[in-house]
């Protein structure tokens, strides 16, 4: 494999990591949105707040990596995508700001009105951001952009984009529900465990339906990707994604250990992303820009691999440690009592 191919693989890996980590987060926002009124939704929202708080920033840093690897490794590809997909990407960026700020501000907000406002901002933008990112990906997959393509609604408002966007939302909802079900057990709320398991099953059904529709739509709309998804490695990954989804269903139905349903859900989503990436081979944008054509200077690519290697050595253990601490209940936000004088921790 060439260095460019290797960097492309790393990019795909980081996109998959963002889809899983960031996706879980967006999914939590989706269930926040659909949790109902202030009273009915209080407990699910309480769980979402506590489960997300320590890790959501880290989950979203993956996106920065996606951007950096793209513009350093494949500058022409970066230029092409951002020029052609201007509007969905701009809206996704606005969504990211609203989402993060909404979530961060909801916690310290005191009054119900404030919490409602910030909560709504957080939840709605959690829905829109993955949709627009998915729509942009759909525009790439269907080959609607090529170097020099000007921005136009057709680039991202087309059948493939629409389906990619919906699929992205459904996948985040699926991941979010699976992870929240596990968190419900961790926070000793068995009723919420069942609540999110049911929702995870609904979400996976929606994902399956959308995936089937997508096979029909891409046949005419994105022939190169369709061919890749139905042959060779792409097909194998699609099958893996389907098997992993079924396994997740099985694990959710039997009251099995939450850990395994999480693993199965992550495998399902990651193999879905990989199936798409592999189906695009050898193109960054089918069928106008290959990986080799879009690659940056060879020296830079080698350095990029080195930087990635260091990241693997340094960042992975750190992230794994954070997740470990989080799933073992070692991370908890400060309470009002901790922030009061003469309160917790003070004996003076």
């Amino acid at each position: 494999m060439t260095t460019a191919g290797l960097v492309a693989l790393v990019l795909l890996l980081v996109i998959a990591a963002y889809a899983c980590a960031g996706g879980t987060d967006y999914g939590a926002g989706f269930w926040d949105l659909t949790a109902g009124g202030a009273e009915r939704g209080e407990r699910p929202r309480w769980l979402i707040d506590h489960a997300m708080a320590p890790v959501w920033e880290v989950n979203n840093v993956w996106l920065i990596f996606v951007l950096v690897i793209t513009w350093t490794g494949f500058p022409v590809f970066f230029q092409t995508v951002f020029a052609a997909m201007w509007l969905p990407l701009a809206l996704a960026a606005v969504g990211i700001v609203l989402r993060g700020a909404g979530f961060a501000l909801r916690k310290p907000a005191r009054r119900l009105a404030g919490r409602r406002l910030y909560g709504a901002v957080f939840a709605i933008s959690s829905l829109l951001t993955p949709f627009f990112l998915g729509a942009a990906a759909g525009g790439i997959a269907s080959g609607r952009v090529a170097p020099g393509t000007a921005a136009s609604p057709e680039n991202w408002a087309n059948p493939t984009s629409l389906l990619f966007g919906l699929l992205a939302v459904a996948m985040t909802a699926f991941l979010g529900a699976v992870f929240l079900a596990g968190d419900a057990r961790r926070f000793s709320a068995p009723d919420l465990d069942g609540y999110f398991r049911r929702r995870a099953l609904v979400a996976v059904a929606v994902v399956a339906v959308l995936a089937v529709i997508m096979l029909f739509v891409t046949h005419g709309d994105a022939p190169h990707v369709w061919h890749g998804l139905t042959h060779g490695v792409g097909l194998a990954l699609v099958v893996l994604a389907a098997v992993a989804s079924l396994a997740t269903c099985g694990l959710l139905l039997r009251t099995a250990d939450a850990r395994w349903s999480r693993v199965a859900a992550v495998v399902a989503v990651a193999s879905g992303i990989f199936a798409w990436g592999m189906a695009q081979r050898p193109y960054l944008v089918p069928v106008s820009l290959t990986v080799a054509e879009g690659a940056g200077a060879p020296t830079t690519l080698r350095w990029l691999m080195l930087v990635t290697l260091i990241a693997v050595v340094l960042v992975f253990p750190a992230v794994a440690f954070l997740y470990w601490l989080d799933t073992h209940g070692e991370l908890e936000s400060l309470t009002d009592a901790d922030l009061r004088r003469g309160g917790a921790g003070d004996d003076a």
Partner: protein
Amino acid sequence: MHTTVHLLADVPPQMLPARSMMAFTLVTHIILVPLGVALPLITLIMHGYGLRRGDATALLLARRWSAVMAVQFAIGVVTGTVLSFEFGLLWPGMMGRWGDVFGLGFGVEGWGFFLEAVLIAIYLYGWRRLPSRTHFLLALPLPFTALLGAFGILAANSWMNTPRGFSLDSAGNPVAVNVRKAIFTPMFGPEYWHFVVAMFVTAGYVTAGVYAVGWLRGRRDRYHRLGFTIPFTLAAVFTPIQFMLGDSIARQVFHKQPVKFAAMEIVWKTDTHVPEYLFGRLHPDGTISGGIKIPQLDSILAGFRPDTKVTGLTSVAADDRPTATQATITHFAFDTMVGIGSLLLLLALWYGVMWLWRRRLPASPWFFRGAACAGVASVVAVECGWITTEVGRQPWIVYQYMRVAEAVTPTRAPALWTMFGLVIVVYVFVFGSFLVILLKMRTQWRLADEAATAERTAAAPETETPYGPRSTLRPGSAPGPSASGEDRP
């Protein structure tokens, strides 16, 4: 590829909205950057002090600063992500041609930032359950990861000022990339240290300023003294260092980017014995109105001798240099920054002298008035420094290699203006809410403190204490019956 000649003829109409949007999002993000880089260090110093002395007040301050950090870091993360998007949304031409030359610095920034996010999460959420020593030790690498993140950003920005590490082929595309040279460009060192120290100084003054206000309002307890002294001392120690670094970077600009230096000092014609203008406006015909003129001083500052030759703006063609308005903006920003820096130096000296002679804080309310303003002033200085370096580089986005007009997105101006309007609304909402939340936190804590002092006798049984024994009941609004402690090692 576009030809330069074609683009010179007409500046694309989307330049203004693209520029305005970039400027606006950067100006707002920069407000959060000093706290993002340096608040962890300041908090850790306070935390370490509290642990070592067993000082409950210091630990309380550290916990409260953590609570502020949690909100501030989150907003910093998302506004920073927007900037990454804007490289593609607004300046795709720059990334398409130069991404593989200078983008790698961002890779370093990426993992520095990743580590920082991980460590901050552990620190902010580790107060309650991690053993105190472990909690503190795990946070110690935080300031270094912040420096690493700054490394990447500054490598990229200094490359835009003094691009190196490539050669151009016949089509004008960069080839033979040398990554090491592209990262360690001539302006990198000066920019990096000037920036990092600016972050420490600013975060120190901003934090101390909050307690200076409390002090002026008569709250002169140990809590306020500690909350003021530690950040202010840090900032005061770094202020003279920053003064020297600032002086050195100005001289580096004089050597490495003479036209930018000419804009900073509004020097029209290359000459010796050049006077220094404090403020003053440059007009398109080269005349200067207003301002205070000090003969010879600019030459002396640049080269220590009055006969130092200073390059003027007219040394390059009119379309290769900042316009008169841009030069005036650069000059005003530069002078404001230097002016604020000088005032802060006086304030730091006042503080230092008092400590050395009397071993106490200055008593004068004027000192605390100054300290209360120092936070805002240093944020203004940081903004001015950024304006100086960015506007002074015009019309280039990559100095002498690519014009801003060549890099700008092909998206049409009305779309950009609309998006800019949306961004303003969103940012006003986000930053306004952030400010409101901070003020509310402060009020709540003050009221809680006053209540605690009032009824110090009634020692209410508190819920779980950080670093205290772990109970099995969860605090707060835990739902349902809780029986935790199940699979905990």
